[in-house]
């Protein structure tokens, strides 16, 4: 096992981690602020990939503008879903179960809407101009597009950190993740905040989808794979913990990248293995924001 | 005579805030006593420590000579401490009868029977009816518990506790939210239950008619510490208690 192999896999893992983090951070944000588990979060990711395809491959929009527009469109879609449907079941008895059912319905509906609009066949997206090649480093080649994704991920992390620690909405979101009742005391319009958070979180997921589209093929039904990976990330990091999601994504991204290189067929087993170990020793996650209520 | 319950220098702090500090007292068997004090004095916290819902930072809680600190609620209730909660803790969708019956079944060790219908468990059912009868709820035994009036839900909560045949019963504000008439009835009922079930009873209460009407011993908590302890007459005459809690015109 030589250094160039390690570096190649490390970069590949970092790329996956970045994409995972963009999705999982939204998932954890929604849960932290609104106590909603958005089972359909992966579907918003998929929707982002399709919007990216539509803008770039069909309407020939500039990639960067397309990326932004995909995020915005998916975010609007997410806000609509929260505003029109999810909001109606808050506070109902057995709410957790109904949330899952409702967001499960979202998955089914989004899947078919995507099929209706774009057809069932695979779609692909070209890499943006200037990022088609690779950088040579000794005897290995690192695709510049992967480096781009990692860079964008870092920008988002720094931006998110700034928003969370330096702005009032960010402080509200952090307060809510620790104690939800505090938020209403602060005089915040809770329903509006929730819709907004839902929009931001789904926009992040949508952007991740569009970013990932040139690397992976775009297919209906991709949502469920993504949600399970993000779920593992969130379980590792602790539900509702933003930085936990970042660490979890990094861990799962790297574990996956190396497992794929060594035992390609059984790679997915390894992320589960990591999760099982964490569940046994620290069921509330590595960085739990809040102690998990024992049921 | 060994005390039924003995608290020895019990402490609890949340963050930097001391909610109970250095509380010590002994409850004698067969005694009926009240804990009073302003809101936030640490009364409910003290109950939570006794029943294992909260861990003590320091100190010991002895029940019939055995230290309870560190034991989970499940084991503490099995030793004979029953509790009714400030907000009635019941099973809202079950019938009134089943609310009590599940507790009777639990006490009789019959919760792991998988086959026979609950109604076929004669002993648990009879005991449940007897308890409902003593609470005056037997006429509503087939209604789902959530349909009961607020006051009746609180009684049902007490009934669940009674079904476990406790030696020591803790009641957290049994008359809270009741009308004056209901308070009067509940006061008589609790006194009745104390006698007929042969209980040691400790209750938290803001209703002074109840406190000075039926308690043999009154303990006053203020800012987490025990301010005074004595018979109702002594407490009524205590200068500190008057300035801190009861007020001059009492």
């Amino acid at each position: 096992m030589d250094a160039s192999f390690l570096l190649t896999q490390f970069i590949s893992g970092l790329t996956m981690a970045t994409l995972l983090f963009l999705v999982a951070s939204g998932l954890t944000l929604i849960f932290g602020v609104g106590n909603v588990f958005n089972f359909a979060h992966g579907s918003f990711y998929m929707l982002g990939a399709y919007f990216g395809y539509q803008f770039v491959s069909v309407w020939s929009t500039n990639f960067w503008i397309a990326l932004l527009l995909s995020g915005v469109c998916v975010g609007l879609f997410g806000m609509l879903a929260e505003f029109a449907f999810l909001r109606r079941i808050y506070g109902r008895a057995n709410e957790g179960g109904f949330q899952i059912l409702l967001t499960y319905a979202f998955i089914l509906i989004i899947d078919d809407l995507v099929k209706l609009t774009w057809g069932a066949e695979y779609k692909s997206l070209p890499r943006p101009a200037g990022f088609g090649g690779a950088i040579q480093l000794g005897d290995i080649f690192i695709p510049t597009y992967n480096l781009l994704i990692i860079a964008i991920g870092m920008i988002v992390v720094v931006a998110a950190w700034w928003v969370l620690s330096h702005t009032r909405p960010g402080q509200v979101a952090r307060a809510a993740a620790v104690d939800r009742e505090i938020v209403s005391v602060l005089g915040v319009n809770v329903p509006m905040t929730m819709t907004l958070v839902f929009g931001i979180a789904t926009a992040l997921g949508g952007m991740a989808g569009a970013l990932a589209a040139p690397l992976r093929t775009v297919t209906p039904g991709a949502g469920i794979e993504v949600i399970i990976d993000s779920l593992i990330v969130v379980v590792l990091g602790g539900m509702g913990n933003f930085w936990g999601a970042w660490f979890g994504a990094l861990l799962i991204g790297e574990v996956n990248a190396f497992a794929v290189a060594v035992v390609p067929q059984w790679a997915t087993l390894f992320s589960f293995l990591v999760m099982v170990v964490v569940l046994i020793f620290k069921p509330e996650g590595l960085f739990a924001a809040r102690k998990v209520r024992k049921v | 005579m060994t005390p039924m319950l003995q608290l020895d220098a019990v402490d609890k702090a949340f963050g930097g805030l001391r909610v109970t500090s250095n509380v010590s007292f002994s409850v004698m068997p067969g005694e009926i006593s009240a804990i009073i004090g302003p809101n936030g004095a640490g009364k409910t916290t003290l109950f939570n420590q006794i029943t294992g819902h909260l861990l003590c930072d320091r100190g010991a809680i002895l029940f019939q000579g055995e230290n309870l600190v560190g034991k989970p609620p499940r084991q503490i209730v099995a030793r004979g401490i029953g509790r009714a909660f400030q907000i009635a803790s019941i099973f809202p969708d079950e019938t009134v009868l089943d609310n009590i019956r599940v507790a009777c079944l639990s006490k009789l060790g019959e919760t792991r029977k998988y086959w026979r219908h609950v109604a076929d468990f004669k002993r648990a059912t009879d005991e449940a009816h007897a308890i409902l009868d003593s609470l005056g709820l037997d006429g509503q035994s087939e209604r789902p518990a959530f349909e009961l009036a607020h006051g009746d839900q609180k009684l049902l909560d007490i009934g669940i506790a009674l079904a476990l045949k406790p030696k020591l019963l803790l009641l957290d504000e049994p008359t809270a939210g009741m009308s004056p008439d209901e308070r009067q009835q509940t006061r008589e009922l609790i006194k009745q239950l104390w006698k007929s079930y042969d209980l040691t009873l400790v209750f938290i209460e803001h209703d002074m008619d109840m406190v000075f009407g039926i308690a043999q011993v009154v303990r006053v908590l203020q800012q987490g510490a025990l301010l005074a302890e004595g018979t109702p007459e002594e407490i009524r005459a205590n200068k500190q208690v008057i300035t801190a809690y009861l007020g001059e015109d009492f």
Partner: protein
Amino acid sequence: MTNLATRNLKAASLWAFIVLIFVLVPVLSTSSYQVNLACHVLIWSLFAVSFNMLWGVTGMLSLGQALYYGLGAYSVGLMVDHLGRQWYLPAMGLGVLAAAALALLLGLLVIRVGGVYFTMLTLAFAQLGWQITFKWYDFTGGDDGIQGIIPPGILESGTVYYYFVLAVVMLSIWVLKRMAFSPFGLVLRCVQQNPDRVRFLGRRVRRNQLRVYVISSLFSALAGSLMAGVDGSIHTDMLFWTTSGEVILMSVLGGINQFFGPFVGATVIILIEDLVGARTEYWSLIIGIIIMVIVLVFPKGVVGEAMRAKSLLTRTGAGR
């Protein structure tokens, strides 16, 4: 208020009526297709009722019961395929035991964390099971599934197998019903409504959750093992998350707070599937919209809403 005896009589006659209808299906049917359809209804009903012991009764929403359903099916499929037809019935028993063992193991892991975690972890582990089945081509046949699973002896006849399914399903549902109304079932309902109070009755909440998880899972496996012989073939889809989703849909459509709700839900869904031309291209859109309407408008399900309508009617009647 009806007394206990009449209530028992009513329940028993309803029970007898349902069984009678299913007994008559092969006699009255005009094609073997209808018998096959009735078989599907029965097996899915068992699956849904056992799932509802978890969710409706105990409040544990598992999104991974397909794991046990598939395990039951694959233990029959694999053993018949590798060892021969005479292993059919032992394989059913073995599948059920394996499911119980697996449920115990996984349950210890996933019940430690409650609520939404439980749901998501059951989903994650079920998908893991699906992936293993899908990728382990040499052993499971992967995407090809397993074909030609023919029950042994007289069970080979479609009609006989139907009565076999009917007997096993009705017996199992009866056992589950007894359980639901036993002291154990009462404790489970209490666990759902007020777990803290259950602890303060001196009962262990998680222990009881683990028990019902194992029980529900082994009956799901039994349903799966019965399914293996119905069409003679099994497929990895039986383990896919949509199978878990479908069983949830059946329960919520029928009504999760009534014991027979999931039974009704399963029947309705199977019949709708059949009418809409089983899985048209946009089947999941239809299902999605149905779920949305139920969740937003009729959260009590078919049976639950019917009961409410009935009680409203009798109340206004009594008021006159």
